[in-house]
């Protein structure tokens, strides 16, 4: 991170469009934050003027509202209802197709997606940490997911340091933010009069060179660092430890699971907005003429009935066991699978839970009395 800042340039506010031009010159379609229906989501971005300047995202358990940013910044909103998960792990896509002729003979045809080259502007540190976990899941050396790989390699990530955390943010306690450290192509730090621009990859370096920026000053570097520290200190929620494996697996019969089940809607919103959740169902959609059928994968959730469905019975028929599966997977057994927790502290599961269930509060209740490191 330190060395990154030292190779950085400075992009003044009035030249923000040159960044978009540089990305387009590298044949990227630009996706950026946009206000749709009262929330900040990623949409095609043609000009920097379309960015949601001067907005913050006030978030609490079960509530998200856009509010004015007194400093009129571009990226003062902490995050929106989705990270970049849907860009690589799309909610619905065909994997292959079965074709059947009149005599019943079957042929199977692989479906290959052809995604556009996309530059995503406004990616947060938590989103990058989550994407690294999705990469670990979908692109292990031994078995790469072709569909995910194809989309993933088309992405160019323009990250942004978070200066204004939401009340739901706790990335500082998971070690994933608020300043991006790895995984980006370019990183921006928004200061009062412009952006510290840091290249983070060869692809990023190519765009960075095209911008021909003046070098950052030591004062600007210091301001960027200070801003990151202050944003971390401003976070009000936290997890007690990055590793809760033992603490949670000891509490599988805790009465809190029953209590949270009375409040949980089992709607699966937390899993859909979670940037690391990877569960998906595979389903078939036959064409009515009887000649072909698409084999499609769609986002699924451990809160749904069919997730635990088994020949003759359901492994998780009730909300208690579904919530417990989600939380213990995310914070405990994830360590067995990926060597770290599955939570990056983005707080989306808290803000976007229609019932306002707060993961950090549940963890605190479940592990109360445990000695924490």
């Amino acid at each position: 991170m330190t060395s990154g800042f030292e190779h950085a340039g400075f992009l003044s506010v009035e030249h923000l469009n040159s960044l978009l031009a540089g990305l387009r010159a590298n044949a990227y379609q630009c996706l950026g934050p946009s206000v749709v229906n009262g929330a900040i989501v990623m949409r095609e971005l043609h000009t920097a003027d379309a960015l949601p300047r001067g907005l913050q995202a006030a978030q609490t358990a079960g509530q998200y509202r856009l509010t004015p940013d007194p400093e009129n910044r571009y990226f003062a909103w902490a995050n929106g209802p989705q990270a970049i998960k849907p860009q690589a792990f799309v909610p619905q896509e065909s994997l292959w197709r079965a074709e059947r002729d009149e005599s019943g003979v079957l042929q199977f045809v692989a479906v290959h997606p052809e995604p556009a080259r996309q530059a995503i502007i406004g990616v947060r540190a938590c989103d990058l940490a989550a994407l690294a976990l999705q990469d670990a899941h979908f692109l292990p050396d031994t078995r790469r997911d072709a569909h995910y790989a194809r989309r993933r390699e088309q992405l160019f990530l323009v990250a942004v340091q978070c200066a204004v955390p939401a009340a739901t943010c706790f990335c500082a306690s998971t070690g994933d933010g608020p300043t991006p450290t790895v995984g980006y192509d370019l990183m921006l730090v928004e200061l009062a009069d412009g952006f510290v621009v840091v290249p983070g990859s060869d692809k990023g370096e190519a765009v960075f060179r095209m911008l021909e920026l003046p070098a950052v000053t030591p004062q600007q570097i210091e301001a960027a660092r200070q801003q990151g520290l202050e944003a971390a200190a401003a976070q009000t929620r936290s997890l007690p430890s990055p590793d809760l494996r033992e603490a949670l697996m000891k509490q599988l019969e805790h009465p809190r699971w029953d209590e949270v089940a009375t409040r949980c809607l089992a709607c699966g919103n937390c899993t859909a907005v979670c940037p690391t959740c990877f569960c998906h169902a595979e389903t078939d959609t036959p064409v009515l003429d009887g000649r072909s059928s698409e084999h499609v994968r769609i986002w699924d959730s451990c809160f749904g009935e069919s997730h635990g469905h088994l020949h003759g019975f359901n492994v998780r028929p009730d909300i208690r066991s579904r919530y417990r599966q989600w939380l213990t997977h995310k914070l405990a057994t994830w360590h067995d699978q990926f060597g770290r927790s599955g939570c990056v502290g983005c707080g989306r599961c808290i803000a976007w839970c229609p019932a306002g269930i707060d993961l950090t509060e549940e963890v605190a209740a479940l592990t109360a009395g445990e000695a924490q490191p």
Partner: protein
Amino acid sequence: MKIHSPIDSGPPHAATVLARTQESPTIFTLKLQLDDAAAQAAYRFAPGQFNMLYLYGVGEVPISIMSDPGDRSGIGHTIRALGRVTQGLSALQPGDKVGLRGPFGRGWPLQEVGGNDIVLVTGGLGCAPVVSVIHYILKRRERFGKLVIIQGVKHTEDLIWREQYDRWAKLPNTQVLVAASQGGDKWPWHVGHVVELFSLARFDPTCATAMMCGPEGMMRAAADSLLQRGLSPMRLFLSMERNMQCAVGRCGHCQFGGAFVCRDGPVFSWNEAKSLLGHRGF
């Protein structure tokens, strides 16, 4: 432990039903052959591995392979018609087509346990993944010590392959113990829980390997009993069942704690599985 990889990572391969056998009112066996000769020639599996069988327009189901890996005449699957896909598969007749992906997962450690007495414990249709082991051992009988086959069913009519059990019981160095929780007319075997048969099993616990498949509560009870007799937990294995849709550790449905049953299992050692086995909700 020998693991065979699927022939490729793409869509299923077309396969033809060579034969169909009705084993009980709801259980049937399909013998399949891949249509593509090169794929059929390349296809290898280990007992305990499974295939994803695809029924046109409906979907895929994971089904363990019950035939002998050395039998190149076809791939055998014994299936209970219960869900949408398996009910659809039960209507197939010789000549009909399905899709097949596989084989997937980790099979039984048969290479590593030569010379051991082998204790096989199964409940209900759990016998299918283990029957491939029986076939495997009987074809390579000299490599193993005593063979003990313990099978439990709820109702007497749930016992499939009755003639095979009778035949196995007459083989030298082989013991067959069968129990039904609820007995009936002409039921020659034990009436009661399968665990009650363990005291009758003749094997050397210091040099035996046990393999189990069936309801998790039954496997836990069987494991307690076997371990009490002195069997090493290192030599106790079981096959798990979970919802599987992708078969390659990706879709997330089969998670059992940190394990993906489709990829890390379905065969687990006792030490790998014991902490959550039978724990409702996992």
